[in-house]
């Protein structure tokens, strides 16, 4: 049975990604602590949730491509590369800060 408990996290977007999320860089979200199967939610779950519930823009492919965060976007968990933290399998903790950075190319 799924828990009804919620956890608060902060999700931030930079490098132009904020345009896909109502032009807001910082989103304070309250998300269920467990997914529909009763498992603790992960960053992978969050990416899907952002795509389906938070993003209003139709260009989903600018955020997720072939089931993965699109190339050119870094995912940071509390300011550390998610590859140092187990990538999509990282279990979200209350008050975590998840930052999505799109690389810039201009100069």
């Amino acid at each position, binding site marked *: 049975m799924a828990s009804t408990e919620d956890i608060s996290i902060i999700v931030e977007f*930079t490098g132009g990604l904020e345009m896909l999320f109502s032009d807001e860089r910082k989103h304070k979200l309250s998300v269920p602590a467990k997914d529909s199967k009763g498992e603790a939610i992960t960053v992978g779950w969050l990416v899907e949730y952002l795509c389906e519930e938070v993003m209003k*823009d139709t260009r989903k492919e600018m955020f997720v491509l072939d089931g993965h965060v699109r190339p*050119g976007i870094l995912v*940071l968990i509390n300011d550390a590369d998610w*590859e140092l933290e187990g990538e999509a399998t990282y279990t979200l903790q209350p008050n975590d800060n998840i*930052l999505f950075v799109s*690389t*810039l*190319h201009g*100069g």
Partner: protein
Amino acid sequence: MMDAATQTAEQLRQQITATEEQLQKLKEQLASVETQNEAPGIETPLNDLSVQHPVTPGKWPLSSEEYKRYGRQMIVPNIGIQGQLRLKAASVLIVGAGGLGCPAAAYLAGAGVGTIGIVDGDEVETSNLHRQILHSTSKVGMKKVDSAISYLKSLNPNLKYNAHTSHLTPENSESIVSQYDLVLDCTDHPTSRYLISDICVLLQKPLVSASALRTDGQLIVLNSPSLPPGNEAGGPCYRCVFPKPPPAESVVSCGDGGILGPVVGVMGVLQALEAIKLIAGGKLKAEGSGEGKTDASMLLFSANSNPPFRSLRLRSRRPKCFACSAAAGLSLESLASGSLDYLLFCGVNAPVSILGPEERVEAREYETIRKEKGAGHLLVDTREKVQFDICNIEGSINVPISTLQGNRALAAEGELPSWLPETLPPDSPIYVVCRLGNDSQVVTRKLKESGLDKNGRYIGDIKGGLKAWKQQVDSSWPEY
């Protein structure tokens, strides 16, 4: 007439360059005369009683002019005389003489980096001048590299400057980059970023990479320490951080997205600072190994965030990296042979072509229609509001493409979108225009798909956008 004007402009440019060179020589002469005057032995009468020393060549490692010039930075404990001598012995390659390269080069020249090379194939344009601070109005049309070096020579004539006046390519990259100790990536496209990272890995050069767009900047020091490929203690390369290039349609240039001068300036200045830290700290040559892995960090700058700087901890070398791992598929041979196609790897943003010829009109055709139909038609401008506010065609309405992509400006089935004037008759044609004629096609297609063309209404776009409008109809149109 135009030809005569162009010729005159060209003559003036040459004259300016020649005069600037002459001025430069005069300044160098003056500097050398002044240096001689300062030498002991030609003291003023007040010091007549002091002991007179003959000039001993090689007694001091720097000239007296250099002690004065660099004194304020040499007395900073992190630099000292040793740091200054390291700067003098160092050579730095700056790839790109634009918004990043200009401030970076100015500070490196000011700091006394002995040899500075600059690579760029472009020429100075008026639209560069708000941020590319080494260029000036009189240098529009001149090679950026020559313009930059002429500024740097007047800033600091003691250094050696190398002009590389064509773009970096897989074929020329080895011969250029091998002449330097350290590389600054000041370019503006993923293709050059992957190429520069690859050659730096192959030639074991540390790389200071930066980028900027709108009000944001990013800085990352790569391949530092610059240990050979396969040594996990080396710093990660660009491919370790970004193994796959971003889709071409997600890459936004400064020309399209905009850029604030001080934002890109901050990032270029920070590149110079990282370079000075590496050089003066004696960290150019990677020494030792087996010290464990080295994580990289990325510095984010965002003019509107509080705090504006944020440091992120990135990964170390990727075990299967194409460039810097033991399993690397990259070699100097494969690079030089041209077997790596960076354009293909990163993809090209091809011009949009999704409309049939019957769905498009030339700008001059639209001008005729406009006169005939008057209020019986609608012109939709799909540029972002900030651009629409700069200039727009009289009577046009603004429906930015981003609002359509956000699905905010398309009405539910059977309803009309709120931006559509109620007074517009249901069969009146709609024309769509944008800056260059790409977005207008996307929007035309979207409007048709939403059913706005039922009732036999014509919907089409203006070929070539407002650029064509300027060329064919209104030469006064302000191009920004």
